[in-house]
């Protein structure tokens, strides 16, 4: 099923606020849709598309790339945090009125898949100031060509926390799968893992969603597919290179 959508073109449509008539919405390529309940794609607003356009453009300077990707990451984090539990809380406001609100419940931590995932830490900190952040290094094993866990440093009480797993590019999902398996091994229940991602491939995200049905994926865009080298197309190049060194 996944392979069918693999080569198909991405949908293009008028993008703009609902109240605006269709003729006044400029056309742009939007995210592919997937029908998995645990995959959440950010609303394809013109603003988000414009931000993605900036970071996909090879002419965008590194400073701008960092700035615009941080803005998308903040949107992802804000959406991701909405999946965390809250409890009712009633307060009296400064003007003496009562307000029935909510209180954030449960401890969280971030886990970044090195190195590109670390680029998402700034955006996470912008929304959660003192969040703990663990790291996982996964690289391709030269002999087996399979992803291999090289290093990890995670909070000791990670089993009691909600985990925001960070990786901007999701192609085949090899590293992400291994990272999730590592977390589960450390005692994190699958349903307490939120995977935050900028751009995903349709096949990768489908397999991942089926393999971990209780985990939640929050992504800003599901791209057209993968090329023969397993790079996301159209993609944005190597995220880590563009963020750290290019």
């Amino acid at each position: 099923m996944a392979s069918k959508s693999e080569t198909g073109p991405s949908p293009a449509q008028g993008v703009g606020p609902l109240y605006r008539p269709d003729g006044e919405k400029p056309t742009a390529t939007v995210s592919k849709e997937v029908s998995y309940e645990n995959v959440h794609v950010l609303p394809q607003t013109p603003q988000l598309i414009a931000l993605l356009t900036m970071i996909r453009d090879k002419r965008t300077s590194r400073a701008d790339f960092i700035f615009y990707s941080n803005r998308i990451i903040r949107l992802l984090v804000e959406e991701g945090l909405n999946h965390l539990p809250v409890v009712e809380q009633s307060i009296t406001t400064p003007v003496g009125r009562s307000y029935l609100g909510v209180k954030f419940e449960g401890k969280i931590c971030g886990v970044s898949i090195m190195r590109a995932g670390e680029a998402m830490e700034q955006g996470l900190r912008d929304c959660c100031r003192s969040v703990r952040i663990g790291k996982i290094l996964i690289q391709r094993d030269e002999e087996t060509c399979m992803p291999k866990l090289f290093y990890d440093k995670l909070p000791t009480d990670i089993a009691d926390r909600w985990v925001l797993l960070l990786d901007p590019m999701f192609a085949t999902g090899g590293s992400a799968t291994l990272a999730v398996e590592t977390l589960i091994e450390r005692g994190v229940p699958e349903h307490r893992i939120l995977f935050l991602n900028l751009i995903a491939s349709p096949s990768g995200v489908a397999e991942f969603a089926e393999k971990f049905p209780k985990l939640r994926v929050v992504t800003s865009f599901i791209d057209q597919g993968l090329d023969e080298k397993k790079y996301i197309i159209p993609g944005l190049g190597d995220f880590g290179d563009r963020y750290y060194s290019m």
Partner: protein
Amino acid sequence: MESIPPLYSLSTEVRYAPPWQDLSIIGIAGSSGSGKSSVAMEIVKSLDLPWVVILVMDSFYKTLTSEQHHKAHANEYDFDCPESIDFDVLVETLRDLKKGKKANIPIYSFSEHQRQPDTTTLYSPHVIILEGILALHDPRIVEMLDVKIFVEADMDVCLGRRVLRDVRERGRDIEGIIKQWFDFVKPSYTRFVEPQRPISDIIIPRGIENKTAIDMVVKHIQRKLQEKSDNHTEALRNLGLIAAEGKLPPNVHVLPSTPQFIGMNTILQNPETEQEDYIFYFDRLVSILIEKALDMTSYVSANVETPQGNTYLGLHPKGTVSAVVILRGGSCMETALKRSIPDCITGRVLIQTNESNDEPELHYLKLPSQIEEHATVILMDSQMSSGGAALMAVRVLIDHGVEQGSIVFVTCTAGERGLKRLTAVYPKINVIVGRIEEEGEPRWIEKRYFGC
């Protein structure tokens, strides 16, 4: 031949008239040296109010040709006859101001005898005092005047004052001054200035020394201003009644009540929240509002190439996005604004609500140049209750040429009645609201954010 498209009836337009749309103009005429400007200054001083402006007719002298320029230097040019004044431009300026629009006042150079390329902008005065020897000369102007004053003084006193002033302030020689007086000033007085006397409402003999007359004028203006203020407050109240019914229109976008959003709102409204946390959560919440506001701006399709050489059909923002902060509340939101647009062009307006009658008053205004060409102007205020300040701020933008549809008003919390009132008057603006608050909530967010 084509069929006639369906015709819609025009909706009843709901209007908001700011106080400056109901401008009072006071004309002060009189001979040169009679003490017109001293009387004008004394009136301003006694009124002791903002937005009272003295407009001197000298600014509207016509530019001289080189021949006339020569004459002027030889004291042979008549500056005292009506032909020397550009009455058409003056009438147009006053008409614009009367309509509440902004006007550009020419700057006239006395040394070069010509209009300078620069102009001074005049906007939103409540009272203009038009002062000049021929202030009551043109019937088109007389028609617009609320009070017509003629200042009178003995001609000997006038000449004496003129000699002293021109020698001291304009560095001219006595012979030239006397020549001009007898060639032009005096004949012009009889021909043009004196005939204005009978059409004036008040004649002030002995100028500045005449306290009783000046006091009368001041009282009259004060009464007028009070009426104006009452009308404005009353109009705002009526707008509220009109807008009380019905649902919020689709151009009011209230942010969805996600758990995080409610959670942040809970922290922000909890008096026990530490100042440091308050600022952090406030900035975070406003960042979301700003990102939402940017959805309302214009975009165009654009093909870009990725580093691997693939093309992506995306969007690029179109035109400049600028912001206008309603002080003080709106300035809480600047940190978050700069997170999304670090170099955002930002203007400021200070609107304060008069506590005695709830009337919003415009105190200060500094808008970016060419604001009318910006694709989107984000207007920010942290809180909106009755909507008086927002109505006034939107009106200020429109008076400066900004299209209604380009304005996005962003506020953290607003009362429903205020929102309806604002959108009833300006149906094309977009409004982004964080949370709907109860009616009549006093302003407290800015105090909390700034800690004072």
